[in-house]
């Protein structure tokens, strides 16, 4: 297997540097206070997961990074840029791709239009050919209406369209939700490939068995904060403790 530096030499120097840094993040939807001081960092080229029960604030954390919630306080730096005061459409231009939980496939666009929709934010994104090689199903159905695809294909599409944009930091919200094991296996392989290409990935995941072999570190959330950080190396000894935290 090639190392990241071999695949993407331009990232050799910056590898291991900080891609995302969140400090004392509070977020509110109207009157309700959802995040209560979230702190964590993600290093360049890392894949981390946000684990936790429903309502722990994992999806809200991703939305808060994208400035899609109401009010936010604290600090979110991406590649060294403080983004808390930034307009929502400026944030993705720092090189972020966001894949929402509901997938957000557009019904009024066909598959290829959906793929081509997100504007390029950085150079070095995957070409349409590369994407079709990675997801042959999407090529076969490129003229179909986006929402006519199966759940698995829609998820592939939601993921594929942010790979074209040149984003280096991917925020993926529950991408395995409701999908068949065979499709999850494909998604897992795609994530491994992306990691090899030097992408930094934050994965909100319910399916721990999917996330465990992929991730470098796991953050466990509860009541709008990070309560535990577990590295991949610590995972075997912490498994039972983690199960208790997640209530599985």
């Amino acid at each position, binding site marked *: 297997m090639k190392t990241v530096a071999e695949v993407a030499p331009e990232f050799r120097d910056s590898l291991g540097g900080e891609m995302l840094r969140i400090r004392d993040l509070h977020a509110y939807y109207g009157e309700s206070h959802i995040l209560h001081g979230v702190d964590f960092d993600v290093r360049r080229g890392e894949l981390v997961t946000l684990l936790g029960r429903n309502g722990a604030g994992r999806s809200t954390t991703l939305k808060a990074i994208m400035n899609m919630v109401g009010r936010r306080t604290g600090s979110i730096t991406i590649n060294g840029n403080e983004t808390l005061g930034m307009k929502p459409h*400026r944030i993705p231009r720092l090189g972020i791709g966001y894949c*929402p939980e509901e997938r*957000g496939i*557009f*019904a009024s666009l066909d598959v290829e239009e959906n793929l081509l*929709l997100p*504007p390029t934010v950085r150079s070095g994104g995957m070409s349409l050919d590369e994407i079709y090689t990675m997801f042959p199903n999407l090529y076969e159905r490129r003229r179909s209406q986006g929402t006519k695809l199966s759940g698995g294909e829609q998820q592939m599409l939601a993921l594929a369209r942010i790979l074209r*944009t040149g984003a280096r930091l991917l925020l993926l919200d529950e991408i395995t939700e409701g999908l068949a094991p065979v499709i999850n296996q494909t998604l897992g392989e795609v994530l491994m490939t992306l990691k090899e290409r030097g992408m930094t990935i934050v994965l909100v995941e319910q399916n721990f068995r999917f996330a465990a072999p992929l991730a470098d570190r796991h953050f466990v959330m509860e009541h709008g904060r990070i309560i535990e950080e577990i590295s991949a190396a610590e995972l075997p000894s912490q498994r039972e403790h983690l199960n208790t935290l997640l209530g599985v």
Partner: protein
Amino acid sequence: MTMIFGVPLAVFMGQLMLGLINGAFYALLSLGLAVIFGLLKIINFAHGAMYMLGAFTTLLGMNYLGINYWAALIITPLIVGLFGMLIERVLLRRIAHLDHLYGLLLTFGLALIFEGTLVNFFGVSGARYPTPEALQGGFKLGFMFLPTYRAWVLGAALVVCLFTWYMIERTRLGAYLRAGTENPALMQAFGVNVPLLITLTYGFGVALAAFAGVLAAPLYPVSPTMGSNLLIVVFAVVVIGGMGSIIGAVLTGLGMGLIEGLTKVYYPEAASTVIFVVMILVLLIRPAGLFGKEA
């Protein structure tokens, strides 16, 4: 003389032509309304006023600045479109987070203000705008006389409608517009400046109305109330066509113009109400409109 169901062919074709011309205006106006409604979710009650401002800008531009008809075709939609963008930026954006009914009320209020202001200065009788020289006269088609200007209006309106359809359905900007209509928050998360897209869309919809106003100037008296008279019918057309599709707005506009024209031939008393009768029937059978998506 050839007769069609007891009506001379020339009369029949003449009314059909008039119907098509009216239909072209319905199409242009309902198209703009549909585009605006799609992204802003606002029923733009100021649309008739924008059409009227288009005609007035053309008239005043000629009288005071010597801007001829051909230049007005470009300049007027630009000026009125920019004015619309200003309205969106300064007023509509402030209430965008409220119930969309407030947008309807605000635009209705704006329409009254524009109309009232112009009535104050120019009265309601209306002024004539000369038909441009190149478009005077007409063609003898054998079965009817076709005034050049009317043929031009029909052609120009169709080209602009087709252009709009192409822009929205076949270009990248149009894909942004369609996607922004569905899920503006996600479009922002992709890095698209949605507030700017909204401003441009409102400006474009209003510019379409203003373009219709320029086309109308030599045909109808240019008066402050010309828009509100037309807008009620256009709303009925929009309801019949449904808010779902661009092509739907255009086809319904032309179709309703034709139905109105035919009614004028066979039962003139009903000509001004036939569109509303169709609207009631459509609402009973297909509440989402002929081309609308069922909710």
